[in-house]
């Protein structure tokens, strides 16, 4: 199957895409083989190098992984994935400094990157979590996470007497600490008392931030997170304790231990992310999802006191939204591997998102997917189906059968076909080497499907050639 295709397409994106699919299926050796072959023909394809590094990382061949990732990062310093996996590799090798450097680089590129943040928190000795200034800037822009700044904040905070000396409080999150989020926000806007900006957003990203907050606390003030609270914006200035609810513990991964546990956890999961087809498409733009963390109840920026930022209650930070954040991130990150790495080239399939969504919004459409004409899944938009790969193979088999028959009849090639089953209709449209398959209900209007599919087909042709 892929041999021919690779011969033809190894110069294009397809081999990296196929390799990514292999990786997501756990077929690491096959992925490596494809990537090596493709890279031998197209040695400047950075994305492929990153995926190859990831493949070696999944195979636990750390030295090889580092070799390819370092090579990739020379060509694409801003690659989130390259930095992330390099961080993982160095962490596995025990080179914490380098690992931290790469994780921080990830944060510089994407301040909301939960995983990198967690890794940093886990690796750094209790409490001290220096956050790259750039990150702060980024945070301000997005007004999202930014938990780190708290560290800096302390300096500015002076305005308000940081009441309590909390210190390591990480674990101990007395009552009032809830507000992890804010710290970041405020931090962003130091000095000025208000600092409110976007209290709501913090939710997701905050999680990661949490740890950092802790650091800030560590700096010196124990309990008195109150100021922080205010800043965070939830409780209007002054009301420090209101949000006490969440115990910092929830999320708190003990810095030391967690680092180990998490590290492992993190390391393993990341490679997995791929499982979801880029999907993601998804790859689907990674960037999009982040921008709007669902507005949580958090009262917005009322806190004028902001400046107190410095004392973001460590524990709280963690408490906040550990779970949700992580989930979201994982999803995002999963797709990211392909998507993010792409910046240099282009995000494969990201441009498909819009036309595909329009198609999927049709009431009669159950789902859709893109596969190669040899039956390999390329992109899946039919999440409900558990046997999507089987269906791909079947559709490709039918296509090839028809194609051969038409050759025999000298009728040319198949452009599209419609199969009517008892309870559903399958519309398949060819796009170069790929097939767009749309599964619909029986009562669908094939003509309408083809109209919507046309735009998708054009995009696919552009992406895959």
């Amino acid at each position, binding site marked *: 199957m892929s041999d021919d295709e690779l011969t033809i397409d190894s110069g294009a994106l397809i081999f990296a895409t196929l390799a990514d699919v292999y990786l997501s299926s756990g077929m690491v050796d096959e992925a490596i083989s494809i990537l090596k072959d493709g890279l031998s023909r197209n040695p400047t394809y950075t994305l492929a190098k990153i995926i190859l590094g990831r493949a070696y990382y999944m195979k636990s061949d750390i030295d090889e992984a580092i070799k390819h990732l370092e090579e990739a990062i020379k060509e694409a310093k801003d690659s989130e994935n390259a930095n992330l996996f390099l961080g993982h590799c160095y962490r596995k090798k025990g080179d914490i400094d380098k690992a931290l450097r790469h994780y921080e680089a990830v944060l510089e590129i994407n301040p909301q990157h939960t995983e990198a943040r967690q890794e940093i928190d886990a690796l750094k000795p209790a409490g001290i979590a220096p956050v790259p200034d750039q990150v702060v800037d980024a945070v301000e822009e997005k007004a999202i996470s930014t938990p780190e700044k708290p560290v800096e904040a302390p300096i500015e905070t002076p305005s308000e007497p940081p009441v309590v000396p909390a210190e390591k409080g990480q674990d101990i999150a007395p009552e009032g600490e809830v507000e992890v989020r804010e710290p970041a926000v405020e931090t962003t806007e130091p000095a000025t008392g208000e600092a409110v900006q976007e209290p709501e957003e913090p939710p997701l990203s905050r999680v990661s931030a949490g740890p950092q907050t802790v650091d800030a606390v560590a700096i010196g003030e124990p309990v008195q997170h109150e100021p922080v609270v205010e800043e965070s914006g939830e409780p209007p200035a002054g009301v420090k304790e209101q949000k006490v609810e969440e115990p910092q513990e929830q999320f708190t991964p003990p810095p030391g231990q967690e680092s180990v546990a998490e590290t492992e956890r993190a390391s393993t999961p990341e490679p997995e992310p791929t499982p979801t087809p880029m999907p993601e498409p998804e790859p689907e733009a990674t960037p999009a999802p982040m921008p709007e963390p669902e507005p949580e109840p958090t009262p917005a920026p009322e806190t004028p006191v902001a400046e107190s930022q410095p004392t973001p209650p460590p524990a709280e930070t963690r408490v906040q939204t550990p779970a949700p954040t992580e989930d979201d991130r994982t999803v995002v990150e999963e797709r990211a591997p392909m998507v993010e790495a792409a910046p240099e080239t282009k995000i494969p399939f990201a441009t498909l998102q819009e036309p595909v969504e329009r198609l999927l919004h049709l009431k009669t459409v159950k789902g859709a997917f893109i596969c190669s004409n040899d039956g390999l899944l390329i992109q899946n938009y039919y999440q409900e189906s558990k046997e999507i790969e089987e269906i791909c193979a*079947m*559709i490709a*088999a*039918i296509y090839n*059968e*028809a194609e051969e*028959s*038409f050759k*025999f*009849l000298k*009728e*040319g*090639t*198949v*452009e*599209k*076909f*419609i*199969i*009517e*089953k*008892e309870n559903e209709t*399958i519309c398949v449209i060819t796009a170069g080497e790929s097939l767009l398959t749309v599964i619909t209900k029986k009562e669908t209007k*094939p003509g309408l499907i083809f109209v919507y599919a046309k735009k998708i087909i054009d995009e696919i042709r552009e992406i895959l050639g």
Partner: protein
Amino acid sequence: MKIDELTKIPKVLGAGLATDDGFVIESKFTVGYDAEKSAAMAAQIVHRIKTSLKVERASIILYTHNNVFFVKESDDGIFFVICQKDANLGLVKIRTDKIK
């Protein structure tokens, strides 16, 4: 009978009925089209669909650059129609859908 009805539609190049193993039972084609080859192709595709998708009755519409093929499994055998791409495909489909 059914075949006659179909071939009367403008730009329909021919229609036929074949056995499951691809032999022609009945056909009416314009010059230049080989009914036997078409029947064999129809049978092969039907077989493939039935084994792949596990459907009881296969039904498929195939578009090529110039023509469109309707293939449908019926009680009497495999029904197939070839028409030009600019034929009234909706009408052809309605007629073929009537075949049980």
